[in-house]
Every structure is written in structure tokens, then in C-alpha cells.
């Protein structure tokens, strides 16, 4: 939807130009948050009018990174979405993000229907991506891969919806750091030499509350008639800077304070290079300098937002000092944040190392509209779900899901997959609970730090949420009366994906110094205890007379002859 908003703002972007056949755009959106924190979201988009498929050998690359192009053609990828996230998006403090992602690494891929052995291709692909992004994606195997039936639909064009060609996996434990950022930056046409990417310095990006970087590849229409397709590569990076950690704690942000850099030029290869500042709450709350006269309106996440736009391709944006350092200063801390309509949390209940219960809470904060959500849960096999204990309750009543897709796990082969379509009543909390038993692993299956616990990836909640604009049917804010009677379909709801926190679950863990003790003890018991007991049980014992001496023997012969008992 955000992409759609961009299209509305600049309808000229997609016009077909014969030369060159590829195109690069960069932009940065800055949203000051009510908590005083600041959210910066970078998007870099490369469009390329080419065809990787049908044995077409593509060898000349200009803007599009060659490493990814080869991945697309070799593995017949239709769509690829990969994200690396450090931290958890705090929906209740920060609102909805432009691009949601779960903590750790997430990868989902749609393959072309020409692929015969999807599992083998997937295995190979994850290993290749692992090398490209310097991440532990090679840990993705059948035990953490699922094929969601409804939650992850293709985002590009194409009519393949057979989920046999979809693979989804998360690695909640993956830690994201500079070694992942560098290869990601190398995919950009200008690298980190020019344009917005000069701001991406790791010492600041990792001094933040939230950091997420992603790569999305999908086929899109080349023009409105959609006769031919282009490949779109979208690289995104989201970061939230914390007010309290930033030093003096004054409610004031600038590009320099955030990234310790200012901007002096756009990327020369970019056809468009813009900065958007969300000023919907201006001027009541904060002031912006330097001021700009360029304004843009867009529907973002169901809300009508106003942005100040800075065009970096224009020289006068940089002013007389030839450098742009945007400054945002809060005037007051008044005002409440618009409460996110959908939000979710998850935790493990119970104590002890035998059983437990996973609780997933989904909040619908809409005052009067109910809406359906798709819940996807992928739980590793070593938590043995008791699926008969699955309950879904809202407002104290049983809430029957209208669609359930459950695939039980197989030990050491595949995880549990649970997908449900649940209707969330207005202004309510819906609680999904399911009990599980903790499996005892084989001793080589434990991680090197078994007492840390084992991770269960985030659940994914996807939904079409009624938009807040549609909510105020009474408001005539900047809208002619004739346009506001029937709610417009596009604006009436918007797509949201919410990720819950991952879980850390302790499994029964043996004392690993114990095998040594056990071996010693067992050997001793077998050798001494069993051996002698066996001896005692199987042998019979008699008192054996020592052989008598010669004199005694003679005496006995004489006694025998006399008929007296021997000595």
C-alpha cells in the first residue's frame, strides 16, 4: 500500500522509457514518534526490464546486482523476501512500521512452477544466500521450513498460488550486525559512496533501539497494460533511534545526530532521490528546518499523512552550505498517539520442565468493527503441541476459527504448522492457547549453550484492517461532501502484518559433565557389584577339608578298621 501511495505521489515514474532499460530510485522517510524516538526508513528500488527465465542468459548487468540476478535465474525464483532484524518493533509505542519484520532472519521464496524438486532447490538457495548476506541462513533446513497455505501470498504479478512452490523459514536467533550490513550495501548501485546510503554508518545504525534490513525481489508490470514484466529489487532499511540513549535527552533530532553524517548529493545513478518527513502533526508539535514548500499527501497504513519532501536531485535543496542537515525539534510533548488497531503478543505460561502452554493474544482496538486475521504459527518439533487443547476465546466466549490448517510435526523432520482464520470482535482481546510437552533431546542435539533455551519463531498475523480514515465518516476534513458518503473501497481497509515476539523455552537439559560420572559409576557397579553378585548366585560353596597329613591318614585307616569314626 505504501508503494501504491508512492505511485500516486509520482505518477511519472513508471512511464516506459526505451533507453536505459533499468532505473534506480532512492528515498528516506522520517517519522518522529510520540515517545520522542525517531523512525527512519530507507528504500532503494532498482527496476530492470529483462527476462531471467526460459534459459535466457543474462550477462550484462548495469544497476541490478549480478549476484542476485544469478540467484534468480539459477534457482528459478519468482519472488524472494529476506529480512534481518535486530530488536523488536514496539507497536504500542511506535505504531505500525512501513515494512514489518520479525526479530532474527526471515526468508520466504516463491519458486517458478517449472521447478521440479522444490526442497532441494530451497536447500541450495539458502546456502547461496547465506554466502551473499554473510548470515547463518544455512541453518535453515526441513525442521524449520514450512509451506503456509494462506498467510504469504505473492506480492508481485503472477497467478501461481499453489503453496507447493512456497517456502517460509525464520531463524529467530540470528544476530544482525555490520557483517550483514556491508554485503547489503554492496548491492546498491552507488554502494555507500554517494546518495542516501552515505548515512548508513554502522556505528550509528547499531546504536539504536531497532534495526531491520531487507531485500525484496518480485516481478512487476512494466506499464499499465502489463504486457511485459520487469524485475523489481527493493532494498529497505528501517531504524529507530532512542531518545534516552542519544545523550542529552533533548527532544531534537537532526540527520547529523542520527547518522553522524550530512547529505551533500544524490546518488548520480538515481532517477529520483527524495527525503520525506512525516509532518502530519506539524505545526502543533514540532518544527522543521530548513523548511520546504514541497508537500505530499499519501494514504499510509490507513491514515492520511502529509509529508514534507526534499528533492536531492535539486541543487537548491542543499542551500548555500552545500550540505543538508535536517533538523526536527519538538515544541511540546502533548498529544496522544493514534492507537494501533491491531497488535499482538505471545508468551509461555506455566512452570517446570515438563509441560507448558503457549498463549497468543491478539488485540483489536477498533471501537466498532470486527475484522478477520490470519494467524500463522510455526513451532519446532521439540515442543510437542497437544492440539486437542487448542482454544480460541474472545470476550470470555469460544471463538470458532472459520479456517484451520494444521500440519503435525515429525520428530527431527519438520515443525508444526498451524494456520487459522479468526474473526476479532471489536474492542477485544482474542486469546489462543495450546499446551505442549517439552521433548527430551538426544544429547548431541543440544546446542553448545543448552541452558540458554531454545527459540520458537514469531507468529505471523496478517490482516486487512479497516482504515482509520474510513472510521471518521463524520469528518469532512479537506474532503468534498460528495466524495465522502460511501466509503471508497481502496481506502476502507489496508493490509497489516504483525509479528509477535519470539519465545525462549527451556528444555530439560542433562548435566553434561554427567556422562563421565555415569561411565565411571556404571563401570564400577558392573565390575564390582554385578560381578560379585553373579558370582555369589551361580557358584555353590562348600566347606572343603584340607587334605590331612600322613600321620592323620594312617591314623584314620586304623580307626576305619576298628570301626570308629575318622578324625
Amino acid at each position, binding site marked *: 500500500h505504501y508503494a501504491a501511495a508512492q505511485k500516486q505521489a509520482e505518477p511519472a515514474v513508471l512511464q516506459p522509457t526505451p533507453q536505459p532499460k533499468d532505473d534506480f530510485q532512492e528515498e528516506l522517510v522520517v517519522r518522529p514518534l510520540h515517545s520522542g524516538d525517531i523512525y527512519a526508513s530507507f528504500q532503494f528500488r532498482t527496476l530492470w526490464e529483462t527476462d531471467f527465465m526460459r534459459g535466457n542468459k543474462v550477462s550484462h548487468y548495469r544497476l541490478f546486482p549480478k549476484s542476485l540476478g544469478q540467484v534468480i535465474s539459477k534457482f528459478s525464483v519468482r519472488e524472494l523476501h529476506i529480512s534481518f532484524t535486530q530488536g523488536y518493533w514496539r507497536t504500542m509505542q511506535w505504531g505500525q512500521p512501513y515494512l514489518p519484520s520479525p526479530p532474527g532472519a526471515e526468508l520466504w521464496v516463491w519458486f517458478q512452477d517449472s521447478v521440479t524438486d522444490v526442497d532441494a532447490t530451497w536447500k541450495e538457495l539458502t546456502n547461496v544466500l547465506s554466502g551473499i548476506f554473510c548470515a547463518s541462513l544455512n541453518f535453515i533446513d526441513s525442521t524449520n521450513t514450512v509451506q503456509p497455505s494462506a498467510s504469504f501470498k505473492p506480492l508481485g504479478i503472477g497467478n501461481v498460488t499453489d503453496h507447493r512452490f512456497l517456502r517460509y523459514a525464520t531463524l529467530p536467533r540470528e544476530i544482525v550486525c555490520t557483517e550483514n550490513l556491508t554485503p547489503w550495501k554492496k548491492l546498491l548501485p552507488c554502494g555507500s559512496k554517494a546518495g542516501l546510503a552515505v548515512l548508513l554508518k554502522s556505528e550509528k545504525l547499531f546504536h539504536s533501539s531497532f534495526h531491520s534490513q531487507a531485500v525484496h525481489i518480485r516481478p512487476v508490470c512494466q506499464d499499465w497494460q502489463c504486457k511485459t514484466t520487469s524485475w523489481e529489487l527493493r532494498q529497505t532499511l528501517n531504524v529507530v533511534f532512542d531518545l534516552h*540513549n542519544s545523550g542529552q535527552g533533548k527532544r531534537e533530532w537532526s540527520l547529523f545526530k542520527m547518522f553522524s553524517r550530512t547529505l551533500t548529493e544524490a546518488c548520480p545513478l538515481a532517477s529520483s532521490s527524495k527525503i520525506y518527513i512525516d509532518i502530519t502533526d506539524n505545526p502543533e508539535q514540532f518544527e522543521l528546518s530548513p523548511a520546504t514548500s514541497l508537500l505530499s499527501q499519501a494514504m499510509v497504513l490507513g491514515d492520511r499523512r502529509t509529508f514534507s519532501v526534499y528533492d536531492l536531485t535539486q541543487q537548491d535543496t542543499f542551500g548555500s552550505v552545500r550540505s543538508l542537515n535536517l533538523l526536527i525539534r519538538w515544541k511540546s510533548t502533548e498529544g496522544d498517539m493514534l492507537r494501533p488497531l491491531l497488535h499482538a503478543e505471545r508468551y509461555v*505460561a506455566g*512452570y517446570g520442565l515438563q509441560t507448558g502452554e503457549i498463549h497468543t493474544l491478539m488485540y483489536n482496538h477498533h471501537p466498532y468493527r470486527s475484522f478477520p486475521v490470519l494467524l500463522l504459527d510455526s513451532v519446532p518439533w521439540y515442543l510437542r503441541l497437544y492440539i486437542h487443547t487448542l482454544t480460541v476465546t474472545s470476550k470470555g466466549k469460544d471463538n470458532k476459527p472459520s479456517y484451520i490448517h494444521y500440519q503435525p510435526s515429525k520428530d527431527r523432520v519438520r515443525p508444526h504448522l498451524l494456520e487459522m482464520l479468526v474473526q476479532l470482535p471489536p474492542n477485544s482481546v482474542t486469546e489462543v492457547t495450546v499446551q505442549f510437552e517439552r521433548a527430551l533431546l538426544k544429547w548431541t542435539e543440544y546446542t553448545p*549453550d543448552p541452558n540458554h*533455551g531454545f527459540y520458537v519463531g514469531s507468529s505471523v498475523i496478517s490482516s486487512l484492517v479497516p482504515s482509520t480514515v474510513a472510521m471518521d465518516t463524520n469528518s469532512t476534513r479537506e474532503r468534498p461532501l460528495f466524495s465522502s458518503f460511501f466509503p471508497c473501497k481502496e481506502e476502507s481497509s489496508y493490509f497489516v502484518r504483525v509479528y509477535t515476539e519470539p519465545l*525462549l523455552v527451556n528444555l530439560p537439559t542433562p548435566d553434561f559433565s554427567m556422562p563421565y560420572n555415569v561411565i565411571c559409576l556404571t563401570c564400577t557397579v558392573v565390575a564390582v557389584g554385578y560381578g*560379585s553378585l553373579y558370582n555369589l548366585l551361580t557358584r555353590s*560353596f562348600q566347606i572343603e577339608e584340607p587334605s590331612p597329613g600322613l600321620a592323620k591318614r594312617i591314623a584314620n585307616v586304623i580307626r576305619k578298621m576298628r570301626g570308629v569314626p575318622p578324625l
Partner: protein
Amino acid sequence: MGLLSDPNRRRALINLLTRLNAPICVVCYMAGVAWFMGLAFEPFTLRTYMSENAMGSTMVEERFPSGERAVATGREFAAHKKKVSGMPVEWLVKTMQARGLEVYTQRFSRTLPFPDENKERYMVKGTNVYGILRAPRAPRTEALVLSAPCTPGDNNNQAVGLLLGLAQYFRNQIYWAKDIIFLVNDHDLIGMQAWLEGYHHTNTTGMDWSPLQGRGGSIQAALSLELSSDVVTSMDLVLEGLNGQLPNLDLANLFYAFCQKIGVLCTIQGKLQRNDWDSVSGYSHAVQTMMLMVMKQASGRPWGDHGLFLRYHIEAATIKGINSFRQYKTDATTIGRLLEGMYRKLNNLLERLHQSYFFYLMPSLSHFVSIGYYMPAFGLLAVILLPGVLSVLTPLVISHLTGAALYMLPIRFQEMAVEHFPVSETEAVVLTAIAVYTAGLALPHNTHRLLSGEGTEQGWRVLKLVALLYLAVLLGCTALINFSLGFILALTLVPAAAFVTPHVPKVLSAFVLVILSPACTLLFSVFFFQELQEMPVSFLDGWLLYLSVISQGILDHFLYGSLVYPLIALLVYPCWLLFWNILFWK
């Protein structure tokens, strides 16, 4: 094995054992007690050392600056507490929010099974307030807890002040890898119980609580802070938790290490460490410290708010500030730095604390006795029971019924007792318990009437066999879980079990048996405990204390799920009754 395969020598060995049975038993008993007393002797114990790598080698700097401000916050808290005469929920929420925490509250209510006269409460209603410091770039999977109880009166205000001061300071640091939960719990243990049950969504004790809104994943460690003065002379560490559970020894090591580093006097059981272990007074000091730990652990009750965490596999301890008449004082900034250091090290943890010991006794903060050292003392006592087994069924059921009555009647009959006798509910419960207990002594007559016949010589032998086996298993299991309780019970019950036969002088033996019964053990323990604390009491005061200890034991069971009361009522007492039966066998 030649010894056993040679029938001659085998016979000789058995003869020797049967002949020397009584002296061997005496020797074993003495050896067991001597071994136990030896545990407090410093050369026989191990020095504590940090086992956990993540907390050992890494360096942290303590920079907490604002102790003065924390004390001022504490005064402000005290003023608000007085104004609303209870927990100042609104003020706390606002203050925590201003410090950049995510703040949530939890309401809870609980009606006690009978009024608790020590703390003057019956129907408890309260609100816990907690703020979560979200670690930057951590996915809410792990958390640490710092709690301070909001106690009525003028106590503990400084603890809450320091907690808020630390929250403010911690919030501005970037290095946190685990969420930190700052909890101010209402009504001390009851509030803590409600919060923990809410956090883990369990209900073990029938408490009413409102569900928690915010969580920080699995809690790795917790500290509870008690501080009632602006300056302190020493910090005391409390380890004993519910049912005698102890936190991992590394937590105690961590506290000791930082006290040494920062230069704060630290104590355990309120006892400073002494260097003169080779003198008599030094040794008796160590014995006193260890015996205090044994008594507290054996009581099975939580000796601080941390005690309830242990059930959830969360390592926890209480840190108490003590202000005595000593010259050298420590201010709030130093205590803040102590806590900061401890939390930074806990923050460095990669795994739950598991490297060090879970079963130990501490004769001083720098020395500990591990399970491998104290178990032989118990083993020597228990071995006496085994020859008893060599000798050869019946009132078992009746004994247990009496035990079950002792467990259930006091609570059930409190109303009836209050109607008919001029006593309060608490007294009713305690006195009913004592009455049932005493009534059990009349059991032998009733048993025999039921059996309607003369007991045979073989009969009591079988009974004694069963009783001895029973006692051996019971004490063995208890000592594994809660060594101190097991040891104290063994100390009294084992002699009783060993000497009792129907052929010993009746009156004298009955007197000895009563002296060695669980109830009298408890009575002596009360006096002994007071003696250890250097606060001896008169017999009457001791008796009143004894009654309140019984009521506290029952309350602990119903409120927090402490297992000592049911253990005594359902298992130990019936077992003792079996021996009582043997004595009066006809």
C-alpha cells in the same frame, strides 16, 4: 569378595554385626553428628569461587552517580504512601513513565484461609506496579527483575527510591541485552505471588489477579531489595526460599565479589565473617551461622520476597540493608553501584545460572559446604535404620488417617471452634492442630480395639520393619530436597526409631518418645533459633512464638504452596505414630 564367598567368614561377619549392633548404631549416630558439626570448621570447607565464565572474567565499571536523588525520591514515595495510606499507584506509574519505562499495573485480591494475626491481614487487596526497561535491539526473550516491596509503615521507602533511581540511570545506558523489570510489589509476599502467577499465567494457590499486559520473556534472575535507612552499615544476603530451595551459589558469589570490590561490609544470616577460624569463638560463630541457615531452610518458608521466584526456576536472592551502631556507613550511591555491577554481570549471562551448586550450606559468605560434604553426615544417621530392617502390618492406615485429620481439620473446624470456645480464628486453627496431634497419642488403644486380639511378638516386628523402611525413605527424600529439614528430623526421629520396642520401660520411654516427636522438635527449634539470634525468650513467650510459628506454617502452605506443613502432617507425624504404636504393643 572373598569375604562374602567364604561361608565361614560370612557367618563370622554377620555374628559380629548382630553382636555389635547397638554400639555400631551409637557410634554411627555420634559420627553423623560430629561430621555435621565439622562442616562448619573452615579447613574442612571449600572457598566460594565464581563458576560462571560469563560473570567471572568480564570487567564492568560501576558509575551510578545519583544516590542522593534516589534517597530524595524515596522520601517523596514515603509522603505519597502516607497520603493514600497504602500503595501510591498513580504516583508510581507517573514516576516510572517519566523515567522512560513501559509501565503496567496488576490488581490482585486474596482472602486468607484464616486471619494472619502477625501481619494483621485477612482480606488482602492490592496493586503491583512494574515498569519494563526494554533492552535496545533485544527481542523480548530474556529479562531480569529488580523488586522492592511496598511495606506498610515507614519501612522500605529507600528501597523503592533506589529502585527508581537505578531505573532512571539504567534507562540511559545502551548496553542492556535483557529487558529489566522494575517491580514494586504490594503486600510483600502475597503481591509477589500474584505477580509471578500472573507472569507465568498459573494459579497454584487460588489467588485472584488481573492478567499482566506487558512481559519481557523468560526471567533469568531476580533480586529483591530491602532498605529502610538512608545509610547502612552492612548488606545482608538472604538465600533461603520456599520449601528450602536455594538459588544457584553463583548468585551469592556475585554478591560477595562485588561487596569485596566496592568495599561494602556483607553478611549472611546477619553474621559477619571472621578470620579467627582456629579459635573456639571463631568456630562457634561459623557453627551459629550455619545452624541459622539450617533452621531457616528447614522451616521451608520464603525468608524474603525472592523465595517465590525459585519455583519458576529463576535464580533469586534478597539483599537487605542493615543499619546498626557501627561507625562505618555506606551511602545509597554505593549500594546503587553494587546493584549496578551485579545487574551488568547478570546482563552478560549467556545461559541461565547453572554452573555452580544448587545444594549447599554456608558457614560464612566466603565458604560453602557442598552436597558431597554434608550428605555423609546424613548417611551415617540413616545407616542406623538399616540393621533395624534385619529384624521382621496393621495400624498404618489409622496413623495416616490421623495425619490426614491433622492436615484438614484445623482449617475446616475453625468456624465451629470459634462458635463454641472463646478463641480467635488463628488460635482456633493452631489449637485444633495441637488437639488433633495430642489425640493421636491415644491411638494404640483404639488400634487394638479394632484389631480385637492380642498382638503377637511377630506382629510388632513387622510393624517396626515397615516403620523403619518408611522413615528411611521419607528422611532420604526429604534430605535430598531440603537437607536441613531432613537432618533435623533425622536427628530426633532416628533415635526414637532405633530404641523403641514393646519391652522397654513404658513410662520413661513414652516420655522420651514424646520429647522426640515432631511437635516437640519444632518447639525446641523455636527456642534454639531465638538463642542463635541472640534473643533468648522466656518459656511463655517461646510458647506464644511456637503457636504463631504453627499458624505461619499453615498460612505459608495455603498462600505460597509451602510443603513443610503437609509433609509433617501427612508423612512424618504418621510415621512417628507407628513407633508410638510399637511402644504400646500388647
